[in-house]
């Protein structure tokens, strides 16, 4: 790999890569990413496809919110069980709506910590004006133009309460 080939890929996200420098030495060079340069929109598209697919199932009650977030965040039931410190059998049960109905708030709180979402979001999907879950807001330029609101969720001292705030985007 030669330095000049890396420089062609430089873009907004800086990475360190190793290459043959112009003086013939080998070493570290700050550069960009091939993926971000060429495939970021496609990457977003695939993540959005997955989110839409899982959301449709969730809205039809074919899966539980626990399964929705687990799949999107690339976790297996076994890994989720370890992370939430719950028995694997219980996690498997909570992946279905029937099992989810019997989950305790304490258990949901453990899931919400793993997924990095408020507990309240296990009972709702907060969507942006472009129709996306704000948690998985995979921006692309076109959708950015459609946005008229920003939605933020802020924690408070009460771990079960979240303040969801919608603000108009000023032009």
């Amino acid at each position, binding site marked *: *790999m030669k330095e000049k080939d*890396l420089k062609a890929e430089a873009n907004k*996200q*800086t*990475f*360190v*890569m*190793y*290459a*043959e420098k112009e003086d013939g*030495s*080998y*070493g*570290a060079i*700050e550069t960009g*990413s*091939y*993926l*971000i340069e*060429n*495939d*970021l929109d*496609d*990457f*977003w598209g*695939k*993540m959005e*496809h*997955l989110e839409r697919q899982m959301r449709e199932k969730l809205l039809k009650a074919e899966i539980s919110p626990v399964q929705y977030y687990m799949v999107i*965040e*690339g*976790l*297996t039931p*076994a*890994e*989720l069980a*370890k*992370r*939430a*410190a719950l028995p694997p059998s219980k996690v498997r049960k909570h992946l279905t709506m029937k099992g989810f109905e019997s989950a305790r708030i304490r258990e949901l709180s453990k899931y919400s*910590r*793993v997924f*990095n979402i408020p507990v309240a979001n296990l009972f709702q999907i907060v969507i942006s004006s472009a129709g996306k879950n704000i948690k998985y*807001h*995979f921006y692309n330029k076109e959708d950015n133009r459609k946005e008229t609101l920003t939605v933020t969720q802020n*924690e408070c001292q009460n771990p079960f309460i979240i303040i969801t705030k919608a603000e108009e985007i000023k032009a």
Partner: protein
Amino acid sequence: MNTRIPFQHKMAAHCETGTVTAQLNNGGLDITEAMVFGISSGIFFGYFTGKRFPFPHFIVRNQPGKIRENTAKRLGVKWQSARFKNEDQGMKALDELLLQNKVVSTQVDFFYMDYIPDYLRVHINVHFMNIVGKEDGKYLISDSYFPKIVELPESSLRKGRFAGGNFSPNGFIFYPLSIPTAPDLSVAIRKGIRKACFNMLKLPVPFIGIKGMRKFAGHITEWPKYAMDSEHLSHELSKINILLEDQGTGGAGFRFMYATFLRQASEILKEPGLLEMSTQMMEIGDGWREISLKAARMGKNRDMGPEKLKELSEMIYGRADVEEKFFKTLATMSK
């Protein structure tokens, strides 16, 4: 508490080697990331399937934590480390060390690092970074993947340090107690090379080293069976590019970084043979880069038919063949 420890922040290709190198540099040892990687026998290959993984997965570096452990063994660095069962105790211990002006390295789940762009954040429990202070309730983080020192809320650091699951950090922290200023690099380099060759050629498991590469090559044609749909398969093929290039490897799955190490090693050991091996490793890396670019294009164009997967498979078999020859030669040179 408000404290900011003077620390020279530097970006690095990889989190653990970058974190360890920064600590060593901060402690007065002039050593490069590539040298730390080589001495620690960082170069590796493993291919994994099974219930523990949502999809077949490969790795290109040695076990997380080994970089620190191997620098202790081979350079004589003394690290103090601790894990915690109790979150509050773990956070308190960190704060106390910061108040003593100690830069503290920590292991976290990358997913909770708010300052990293969303598209880079995945659940992986083996991200390393240095904590260089705390101001107004926010920790000051020197993360090798980020161009400058950043702030991280206490709640995010806590979640990251105490995420459960595989390779759970359990609040793991470490910092140097003593760093030799002039260690015998020549001995460390030879030991590092020997262990790397052993890992690549002789570990008696069928999914590690060259055997792992061949398993990957043979298995990739079956990936469609594991995918939920074509979009998922496309995503997993794109991840080959991410794992080899963007996920902190320095390019080509650490092969370019290892080539740099061999070049520096040849100068220290005054062995022209290692210079030639360094050039060969750079070429091997170019081959891996062709694989990662092909996989990215296949994924992007949804061109993922059996013929294309077979071509990718043949390219990986090719890398296994050249790396086997390479590491056999390198092993004889390091005796």
